[in-house]
C-alpha cells in the first residue's frame, strides 16, 4: 500500500468549472427551498396544537388498515395470500434429458424477461429495472432487481428508498445455508432443488447446488420467485457428453480457432428497405473493439442480435453519445463474438473461473462476471502468446450455445 496521491490534475484541469450563471441558478434553487421551509416552520407553529388529535386519529386508522390488509386473509382485499402464504412449488414442466440441466422456458410468462445470475435465472416484467452489482440505487416503479448487490454495507446509512407498491428482487451468492431456510424441506421448483425461505413478508428460495438465494417482496414477489430455474449458462457449461453439430451448420475459422454456427437464414424481403436486413448468423468482420453487447446498453449483459462478430481489436471504440436509457432487463440473444486482441470489453472488468474446460486441445476458462447472458471464455490457443476471447450468447434453453461451445477446436 502507498500513500502517494494519484496525479489526476490533467483531468481536473480539463473539467469545466461552475460558471457565474450556473452558480446563480443553483443559488436560486436553494433559495426557493429555504423560503418554502421558512413558510412551513411558521405554518407548523400555528397548527401544532390543533394537529395533535388529528395526528393520533390518523395513526390509529393506518395501524388498523395494516392489520386488516396484512393479517386477515380476506379474498380480493388482503395481501395475505401474496405476501405471507407459502409459495406454491410447481413440478418440473420439462423433464431433464440425458442428465443435462433444463431451462424451464414455460416458467417465464409472456412479456417477461429472464435475468440470469450464474447458473440460475428468474424472470421479471420487461418494465422492471435491473441493477447489476449495485446495492445503493433507489428502488424504481414497478419493480427493481438487484443482481449480486456488492458492498451493501456501503449504503447502510442511506439505504435505497422504496415504497410498498414496488416489488424488490434480490439475487445474491451465499456461502452457507441461510438460517431462515433451514426450517423448511427442500422441493423441486422448475427443475431446481430449492429450500423455500421462511421469513415474514419476504418470499424466496435458496438453491444449494449453486450457492445462490433469490428473495423478493412486494406485489409481484410470489410470481417472480416462482420463475426460478436453471439458466442457459448451466446447460452450456454442463460436463455431460458433447452434443453433435447439426449437418446444416457451417464452420468458421478465425484467430487460430475453428467453430461451428448455424447457417444464415434468408434475409427478410421488405419493399421499404433499400438493402436487406442482416439475417441471423451472418458473419461480421471488424478491426474495432466492438465491446460486449449493444452500444448504449449495459455493457456485457446481452448481445443485440444473433450474428457472428470476428474482431481483431486493432482500433479503439468509435464515438457514441448515448441518451439516458433505463437499465431494463435485456432479452438474451444468441450470437458469437471472437476477440483476438487485448481484451473483449475495455469498460468491463471480467474475472475468470479457475475451473477451465478442455476442448479439443484448447483450454477455455469461463468468465464468472458480469456478462451473465453472454458466456465469455478466455481461450488459450496452442502457438499463440495471448489468449483469444470467445463470447457466446446465452438465449433460450442454452442448447445452441452449448453446441457452439463444444465445437471449438484449434484451426
Amino acid at each position, binding site marked *: *500500500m*502507498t500513500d502517494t*496521491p*494519484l496525479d*489526476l490534475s*490533467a*483531468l*481536473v484541469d*480539463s*473539467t*469545466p*468549472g*461552475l460558471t457565474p450563471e*450556473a*452558480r446563480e*441558478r*443553483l*443559488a436560486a*434553487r*436553494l*433559495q426557493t*427551498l*429555504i423560503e418554502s*421551509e*421558512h413558510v412551513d*416552520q411558521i405554518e407548523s407553529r400555528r397548527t401544532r396544537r390543533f394537529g395533535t388529535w388529528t395526528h393520533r386519529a390518523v395513526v390509529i386508522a393506518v395501524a388498523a388498515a395494516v392489520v386488516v390488509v396484512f393479517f386477515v386473509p380476506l379474498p380480493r382485499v388482503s395481501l395475505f395470500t401474496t405476501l405471507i402464504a407459502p409459495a406454491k412449488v410447481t413440478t418440473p414442466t420439462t423433464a431433464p434429458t440425458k442428465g443435462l440441466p433444463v431451462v424451464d422456458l414455460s416458467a417465464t410468462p409472456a412479456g417477461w424477461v429472464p435475468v440470469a445470475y450464474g447458473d440460475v435465472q428468474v424472470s421479471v416484467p420487461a418494465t422492471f429495472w435491473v441493477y447489476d452489482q*449495485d446495492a*445503493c*440505487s*433507489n428502488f424504481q416503479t414497478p419493480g427493481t432487481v438487484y443482481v449480486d448487490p*456488492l*458492498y451493501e*454495507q*456501503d*449504503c447502510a446509512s*442511506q439505504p435505497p428508498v422504496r415504497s410498498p407498491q414496488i416489488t424488490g428482487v434480490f439475487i445474491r451468492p451465499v456461502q452457507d445455508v441461510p438460517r431462515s431456510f433451514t426450517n423448511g424441506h427442500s422441493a423441486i421448483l422448475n427443475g431446481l432443488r430449492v429450500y423455500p425461505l421462511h421469513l415474514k413478508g419476504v418470499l424466496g428460495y435458496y438453491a444449494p447446488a449453486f450457492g445462490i438465494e433469490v428473495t423478493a417482496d412486494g406485489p409481484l414477489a410470489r410470481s417472480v420467485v416462482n420463475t426460478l430455474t436453471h439458466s442457459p449458462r448451466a446447460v452450456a457449461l454442463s460436463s455431460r457428453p458433447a452434443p453433435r453439430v447439426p449437418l446444416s451448420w457451417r464452420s468458421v475459422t478465425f484467430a487460430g480457432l475453428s467453430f461451428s454456427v448455424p447457417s444464415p437464414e434468408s434475409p427478410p424481403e421488405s419493399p421499404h428497405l433499400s438493402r436487406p436486413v442482416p439475417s441471423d448468423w451472418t458473419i461480421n468482420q471488424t478491426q474495432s473493439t466492438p465491446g460486449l453487447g449493444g452500444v*448504449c446498453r*449495459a*455493457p456485457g449483459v446481452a448481445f443485440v442480435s444473433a450474428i457472428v462478430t470476428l474482431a*481483431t*481489436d*486493432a482500433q*479503439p*471504440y*468509435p*464515438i457514441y*453519445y448515448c441518451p*439516458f*436509457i433505463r*437499465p431494463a432487463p435485456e432479452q438474451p440473444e444468441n450470437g458469437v463474438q471472437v476477440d483476438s*486482441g*487485448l*481484451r473483449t470489453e*475495455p*469498460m*468491463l*472488468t471480467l474475472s475468470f473461473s479457475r475451473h477451465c474446460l478442455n476442448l479439443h486441445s484448447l483450454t477455455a476458462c469461463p468468465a464468472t462476471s458480469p456478462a451473465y447472458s453472454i458466456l465469455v471464455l478466455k481461450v488459450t490457443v496452442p502457438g*499463440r*502468446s*495471448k489468449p483469444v476471447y470467445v463470447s457466446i450468447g446465452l438465449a433460450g434453453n442454452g442448447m445452441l450455445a452449448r453446441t457452439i461451445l463444444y465445437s471449438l477446436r484449434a484451426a
Partner: protein
Amino acid sequence: MTQDVGSDEDALAASLAEPARFAVVFERHVDAIHRYLSFRVGPDIAEDLTAETFARAFAARRRYQVDRGSVKAWLFGIATNLVRENHRDEQRRIKALARSNEDLRRSTDGVAQVADRLRLAAALASLKPEWRSVVLVVGIGGLSYEETAAALHIPIGTVRSRYSRARTQLAASLADTGEQYVTGDPVP
C-alpha cells in the same frame, strides 16, 4: 446570500432555526461539489445533481452528526450516492472522455497531454465503481482518507486498500492502453 457564521458545523446548526444560514455551506462547497460531479457525470447533468446534493443536505441537516465527519465529507457522501443512482451517466461520461476526438480538436494542449488524459480516463473507466469513488473523492474532491471514509461510510482501512488496489490496476491499465494507443500494436 452569504453570512459568515464561523465553521460549517456552526452554520449548519444555525440553519436549523434560521434556514437562510444554510447558504454559507452552499457558498463554501458548491464549486468543489460541482467540479466533482461534473467530472463524474458530465457538465450537463452535474448542475442538476449539484442542486440535488444541496437540496438533500438541506432537507437532512437535522440528522447530520458532527462526530461522523466534516460537513464537506457529508456533502461528498451525498453527491457520491447521487452518482451511484446515475452510474450509467458516469459510465457514458468517462467513456466519452476516453474516446473523444472532440477533446483533441478543442484542446490547446499538445497531443501528448491530451493522449495522457484519454488514457487516464479509459483506465479510470475500468475501475470498479467503489474503487473509482475512492480515487475521485480523494483525487478530485481533495478529501483526506479520513474524510473519504466518512463520506463513503466505509472504514479508513477500506479506503486505503481500495485506493491502493485502484492505483495498482490503473498502472496496469495504463501500461495496457499505452501499448494500444501509443504504439498502435495491433493484434497478437
